[in-house]
């Protein structure tokens, strides 16, 4: 009874095309954002560091990859590489041009990642499907190798460099709460931008290319600019996620932190969350962040006498099995379950 759009009449085109046309959805989103702002003051710093920050940052990365894989249909396994490009670009900009404001440096880092994405997206004009997925691994391995060269890490002998402290308009981002709020702001901006972008003409072109590229070409969508735009936007967002990961979560930069398994993790989030859904990116990120933590704490909580090594093996095994399980139960991801639930709620208490 609560969730029903009857009686909500649209009187303008703008209202009809609103991002969330149903009032209950608007209220729900506002509540979610309020809770998100309030939550860091209620939980311990450990929860922020171990749970909330990775969740927010992974959500950004998942949104970026979802634009490429879910909306434009170009499978990429190079996410980790593009994240690394963003992080290292930000560090080098800040280290080499001291008077540059951090925000400008972050945006420029995103643009540099976008440029790299376009460069490695060029083969997508000829190569499709799994062939493309494997060629994006070239980006992954090459970029990580490149970013370990001495010039990029400021000639640090270990290859690990610590991130500069960021200060934006006098706000020194230092404590976990500060970091969380900064990440939250970025997440909200990126999610809104992405949501609107995929509803625009550009987004519809991406989906046309995804559904059948030859047909899309015939009705007048030029594949080259469209695909490259998807690579650029996706890599920009992924690059920003890399910046956040290095500056807010790790506090240091190391190319190895963005290895191939990072790429896999982000791809999991996109697929488990739901291909072609911004909401799904959040759900997928939550899944991938929370499941290992649960798997890690449950055995000791119920008193199983297991060593830490054994727990990590079981964790790998269960994580793999859960992926298979979720794919079998709902190949369209958690976002699809969400929309089914909403549909049921709308009709409740009637079955149809």
């Amino acid at each position, binding site marked *: 009874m609560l969730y029903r759009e009857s009686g909500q009449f649209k009187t303008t085109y703008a209202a009809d095309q609103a991002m969330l046309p149903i009032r209950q959805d608007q209220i729900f989103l506002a509540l979610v954002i309020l809770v998100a702002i309030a939550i860091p003051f209620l939980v311990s710093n450990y929860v922020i560091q171990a749970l909330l920050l990775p969740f927010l940052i992974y959500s950004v990365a998942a949104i970026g990859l979802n634009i490429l894989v879910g909306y434009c249909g170009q499978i990429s396994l190079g996410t980790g590489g593009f994240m690394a490009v963003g992080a290292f670009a930000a560090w080098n900009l800040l280290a080499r041009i001291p008077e540059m404001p951090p925000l400008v440096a972050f945006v420029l880092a995103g643009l540099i990642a976008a440029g790299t994405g376009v460069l490695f997206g060029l083969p997508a004009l000829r190569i499709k499907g799994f062939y493309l997925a*494997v*060629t994006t691994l*070239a980006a992954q*391995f090459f970029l*990580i190798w490149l970013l370990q060269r001495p010039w990029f890490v400021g000639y640090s002998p270990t290859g690990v460099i610590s991130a500069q402290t960021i200060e934006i308009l006098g706000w020194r981002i230092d404590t976990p709460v500060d970091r969380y709020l900064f990440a939250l702001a970025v997440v909200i901006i990126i999610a809104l931008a992405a949501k609107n972008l995929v509803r625009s003409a550009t987004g519809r072109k991406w989906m046309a290319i995804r559904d*059948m590229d030859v047909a899309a070409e015939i009705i007048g969508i030029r594949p080259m600019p469209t695909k490259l735009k998807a690579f650029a936007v996706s890599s920009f967002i992924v690059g920003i996620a890399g910046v956040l990961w290095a500056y807010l979560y790790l506090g240091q930069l190391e190319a190895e932190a963005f290895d191939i398994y990072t790429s896999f993790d982000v791809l999991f989030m996109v697929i488990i969350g739901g291909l072609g859904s911004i909401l799904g990116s959040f759900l997928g990120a939550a899944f991938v962040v929370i499941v290992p933590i649960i798997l890690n704490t449950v055995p000791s909580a119920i008193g199983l006498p297991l060593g830490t090594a054994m727990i990590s093996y079981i964790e790998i095994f269960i994580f*793999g099995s859960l*992926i*298979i399980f979720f*794919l079998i139960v709902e190949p369209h991801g958690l976002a699809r379950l969400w929309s089914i639930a909403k549909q049921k709620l709308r009709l409740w208490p009637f079955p149809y």
Partner: protein
Amino acid sequence: MPMELSFFIEVLIGGLLAGMMYSLVALGFVLIFKASGIFNFAQAAMVLFAAMFIAGMNQRYGVPFWLAIPITIVLMVGVAWIIERVVLRPLVNQEPIIMFMSTIGIFFALIGFAEIIWGSRSRSLDVGIPQDPIFVGDMLFQSYDLVAGAIAIVLVLMLAVFAQRTRMGRVLRAVADDHQAAQAVGIRLSTVWVVVWAIAGFVAVVAGVVWGGNLGVQPVMVDVAFKALPVLLLGGLTSIHGAIIAGLIIGAGEAMAEVYLGPIIGGGIDNWFAYVIAMAFMVYRPEGMFGEKIIERI
């Protein structure tokens, strides 16, 4: 022979033989892709899984290799059967990317399972392949590489005979050619898939023994399989002999690059060099050297 030339040949042959080892892993991918259109990312995990069982049984329980290897082959058949039942059958007719993700799930599940039983410590796997260096003139070869190359050749010949001369082989080729037509003449797809995954499992056992004997059995072994992916692309996802030839090209190219190009632009380039070769070639011919021409219809 002048020093540079003999060094060149030494590097070249070493690279070719290393390439044969990549081909061994790539073969498993090709078999499954041909028969079911699934890009089986778990092949790498199957190699590690097999190697861990052989080495683990041998070292923890003293099972001799002549017994441990057949047991592992039987085990791989069981794994193939479980995968078909639990994963492939419920997911039949899903989009390729979903199948691909499910094989990544299998990848983690297999590695996790093997580690639960055997732990993640590194084990040696010495099945008695000689490790001595051999001198031909003033060129140095590893006898291990030669034996491994020979094993790869025998395996490929066996697969070729199996595909061309046996009834099951003919069935596999029919399925690879056209799923629906094969079903129409009475071929049971589910049986075929178990067989194909079992063969891929057998190939994984061979690859696991050869790789493990050379580098030791440890979880990092999975990363080596990432090198089989460019081999696969360069050869074409559907071509068995393509996997072999591409393996040779990539192995030789990689060895050359590491020796002659590495010092100029900094070491460690063998991680990505193969991918760049494959990518450059694919822009020229998107289906790889011997892959089936991709025809698109609306």
